[in-house]
């Protein structure tokens, strides 16, 4: 037993110690085996552990240590060589692994430490990002506030609301202590405190506009920090506290008159208001950049909103003004209409009322003239008659003139004999001329057409008036009346540049010149001649009476006939020439308005006026057919009767001189017949004359008849005289 190196227990009494060592080893082994298990367990749980193989190494190291301690349990008692060998193996392995682990840890621990630094670094970064996020959020909120502010400002067009809202919202967004708006006064030399946030009724502080601090603010479009002590910022009563920072910004006010389409206003003509914002006085707040930007943006928006409000105010005012004017105009128009109506009524009544006694006077005086009278009585009666004739003429003139002025007078067009008109005028004035011992001559040009279309009565009235004036104002000498067709060169008169005569095929211009050798007219009186009621003041004219209306009426008539009238005179005592040109129509067979409703002038024909005249009568109505036939037979015609349009077209031949067609029968179209007859007979001398019988006298029927080529229209029921005159007129053509 000397070769065994195991230590024999020397002290059997130290069995206790041995027992404790035994137990401790056992527990150590247990612990050493359970630690890796725990490690494995927890590492499995955590997904992110980059050093697994380190763990394995560690685990191996611990297991082996445990194994060593476990095996050493057997060495406390007598043990075999195997146990010793195992013990040695395990110790060797343990040594190897632990050295390897130790070496490896040298590599790993710096890495692990650096992980820690990185973690710290990331934490710092996260904190920083948080801070920045906070900042961005603040900015975004500010942006939202701006948008909301803008929306509030632009949602109203009332200027006060805009400004009020601006201040309130700004105050809220930026948590201001005070916010004020200074507007320039009318004179532009001062700024007046107009709106404040906290003080309800701002006192009318004014501050001169040319302070350096104000100029500084106005010259820049940015918000400018100003000193709390400057006059515009002294809005609060001075307190113990340190006043907060104050910022001022300009608000451009666009003046309406600055709006020009092509030229936008220059900066120098702009007016500005001043907005002053004060931070709370006892906070240590400073103006941040984003807050300043907010203020600038708001100021711009306010400017735009204010200009819109101004435009709206202006246009509302203009519209109200226009409405008022409209109402006034309407009222004036209605009053004018009432006045015209009243005048017309008055005239109509007065006309009748005035004419009736007038006629009585004239009639009775003429009757009186026929009776036995003493010379003085006769003189008196003649004077009465003359005066009442004058008065009657005056009444007629006045009525005519007022009707002419209204435009309610219309010419009564008809075909008439032009030569006859002149002859009649001549015959009327010949006696008066011979009494005054004046020579009157009438020259009618040979190319003057015999018949013309126009208003015969009014033309005669005009000629009579002009010639009558010539007579009135001439005491001696001669009067010559010339009439001819005016050619285009002579139509234009330099004195009437607005008169543009247009010659055409259906019309001609009649020019009448009345030259007298009377008292003449001075050149300055000539324009007054045609104004009504105006008379020249020369003594010669005052005795000749007259209302002064005659020429005015003539001028109106001539104008209605699309013509022109004027007077030439070389001066007082040198006589004068009255010239007028009127437009008259040329009567043609087919063109121009024929005379459908010929007045009932009974010609001096006998009962058999038209012997053997072949007439075709088309009428559906048996009774009226018979009556028409009876009429025509009485006049000596040879009548053929048909009762339908087909029959009519069948029977009609060039032997029939006249075809009478009833056009007011529904169904049978008399107009058709006219067209067909035109088609059937192309040569004019072969075609019979077509006359329509109708019960309608309106213009539409007349025009329709003209359009289809009828030669005349007769109104039913037809009288003998009417038939006779129509037929004779037709056949004369």
């Amino acid at each position, binding site marked *: 037993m000397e070769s065994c190196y195991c230590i024999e227990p020397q002290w059997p009494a130290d069995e206790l110690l041995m027992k404790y060592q035994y137990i401790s080893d056992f527990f150590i082994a247990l612990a050493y085996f359970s630690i890796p298990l725990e490690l494995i367990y927890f590492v499995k749980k955590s997904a992110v552990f980059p050093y697994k193989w380190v763990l394995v190494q560690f685990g191996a190291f611990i297991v082996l240590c445990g194994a060593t301690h476990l095996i050493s349990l057997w060495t406390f008692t007598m043990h075999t060589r195997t146990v010793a060998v195992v013990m040695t193996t395990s110790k060797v392995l343990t040594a190897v692994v632990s050295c390897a682990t130790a070496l490896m840890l040298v590599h790993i621990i710096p890495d692990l430490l650096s992980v820690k630094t990185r973690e710290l670094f990331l934490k710092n970064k996260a904190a920083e990002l948080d801070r920045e996020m906070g900042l961005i959020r603040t900015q975004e909120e500010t942006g939202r506030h701006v948008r909301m502010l803008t929306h509030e400002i632009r949602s109203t067009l009332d200027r006060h609301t805009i400004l009020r809202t601006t201040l309130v919202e700004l105050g809220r967004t930026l948590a201001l202590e005070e916010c004020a708006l200074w507007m320039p006064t009318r004179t532009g030399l001062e700024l007046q405190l107009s709106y404040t946030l906290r003080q309800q009724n701002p006192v009318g502080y004014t501050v001169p506009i040319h302070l350096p601090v104000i100029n500084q603010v106005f010259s820049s479009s940015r918000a400018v920090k100003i000193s709390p002590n400057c006059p515009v910022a002294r809005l609060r009563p001075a307190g113990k506290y340190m006043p907060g920072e104050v910022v001022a910004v300009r608000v451009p006010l666009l003046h309406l008159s600055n709006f020009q389409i092509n030229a936008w206003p220059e900066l120098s003509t702009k007016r500005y208001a001043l907005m002053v914002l004060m931070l709370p006085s006892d906070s240590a707040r400073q103006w941040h950049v984003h807050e300043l930007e907010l203020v600038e943006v708001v100021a711009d928006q306010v400017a735009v909103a204010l200009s819109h409000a101004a435009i709206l105010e202006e246009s509302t005012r203009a519209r109200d003004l226009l409405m008022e004017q409209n109402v006034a105009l309407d009222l004036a128009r209605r009053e004018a209409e009432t006045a015209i109506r009243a005048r017309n009524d008055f005239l109509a009544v007065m006309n009748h009322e005035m004419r009736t006694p007038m006629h009585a006077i004239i009639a009775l005086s003429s009757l009186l003239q026929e009776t036995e009278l003493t010379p003085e009585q006769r003189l008196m009666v003649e004077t009465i008659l003359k005066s009442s004739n004058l008065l009657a003429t005056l009444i007629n003139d006045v009525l005519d003139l007022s009707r002419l002025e209204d435009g309610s007078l219309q010419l009564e067009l008809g075909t008439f004999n032009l030569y006859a008109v002149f002859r009649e005028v001549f015959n009327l004035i010949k006696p008066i001329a011979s009494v005054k011992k004046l020579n009157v001559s009438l020259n009618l040009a040979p190319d003057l057409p015999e018949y013309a279309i126009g208003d015969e009565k009014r033309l005669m009235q005009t000629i009579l008036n002009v010639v009558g004036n010539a007579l009135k104002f001439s005491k001696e000498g001669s009067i010559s009346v010339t009439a001819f067709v005016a050619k285009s060169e002579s139509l234009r008169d330099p004195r009437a540049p607005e008169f543009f005569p247009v010659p055409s095929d259906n019309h001609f211009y009649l020019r009448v010149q009345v030259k007298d050798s009377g008292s003449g007219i001075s050149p300055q009186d000539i324009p007054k001649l045609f104004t009504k009621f105006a008379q020249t003041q020369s003594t010669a004219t005052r005795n000749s009476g007259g209302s002064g209306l005659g020429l005015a009426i003539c001028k109106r008539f001539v104008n209605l006939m699309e013509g022109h009238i004027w007077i030439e005179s070389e001066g007082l005592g040198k006589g004068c020439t009255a010239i007028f040109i009127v437009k008259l129509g040329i009567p043609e067979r087919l063109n121009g308005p024929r005379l459908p409703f010929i007045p009932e002038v009974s010609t001096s024909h006998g009962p058999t006026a038209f012997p053997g005249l072949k007439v075709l009568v088309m009428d559906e*109505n*048996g*009774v*009226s057919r018979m009556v028409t036939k009876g009429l025509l037979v*009485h006049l000596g015609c040879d009548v053929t009767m048909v009762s339908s349009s087909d029959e009519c077209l069948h029977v009609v031949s060039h032997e029939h001189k006249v075809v009478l067609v009833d056009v007011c*029968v529904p169904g049978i179209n008399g107009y058709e017949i006219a067209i067909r007859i035109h088609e059937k007979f192309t040569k004019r001398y072969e075609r019979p004359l077509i006359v329509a019988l109708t019960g309608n006298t309106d213009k539409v029927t007349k025009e329709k008849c003209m359009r289809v080529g009828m030669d005349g229209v007769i109104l039913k*029921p037809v*009288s003998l005289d009417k038939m006779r005159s129509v037929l004779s007129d037709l056949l004369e053509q």
Partner: protein
Amino acid sequence: MDIANQLQRQFMDYSTSLHREGFVDDQFTQLQKLQDENSPDFVVEVASLFFEDCEKLINNMARALEQQQGVDFKQVDASVHQLKGSSSSIGAMRVKNVCIAFRSFCEAQNREGCLRCLQQVTHEYSLLKNKLQTLFRLEKQILAAGGSIPIVE
């Protein structure tokens, strides 16, 4: 001659009364003027034609207006138009005036109004027929007595 004069005076009074009461108007006078040696019975012929026409038209209108299933107003209107034409040709003033009113009822398609007018027309027509027949009888009597029919202006 006395009888003739008496008859003539009677004729003239009667004629004047016809005019005054509006049974006939100037057109009738025109017709009378047309009567001469060549056509001695002109007025009687026209009058008989008128009466025939009238009766025919009145019957047409009565039949058309009695239709229960929708009255053909166009047809009635055409008849009234004819009647109006005839009556104005002969100078039957009252008949013509009723025709004018009748036409407006036709245009308004008023059956009640049309029936009333038809009644009126019939009434006027029979009155006129009686009066004219009396007038013509007087004329015949005058001619038989050897007188001539006076012209009433």
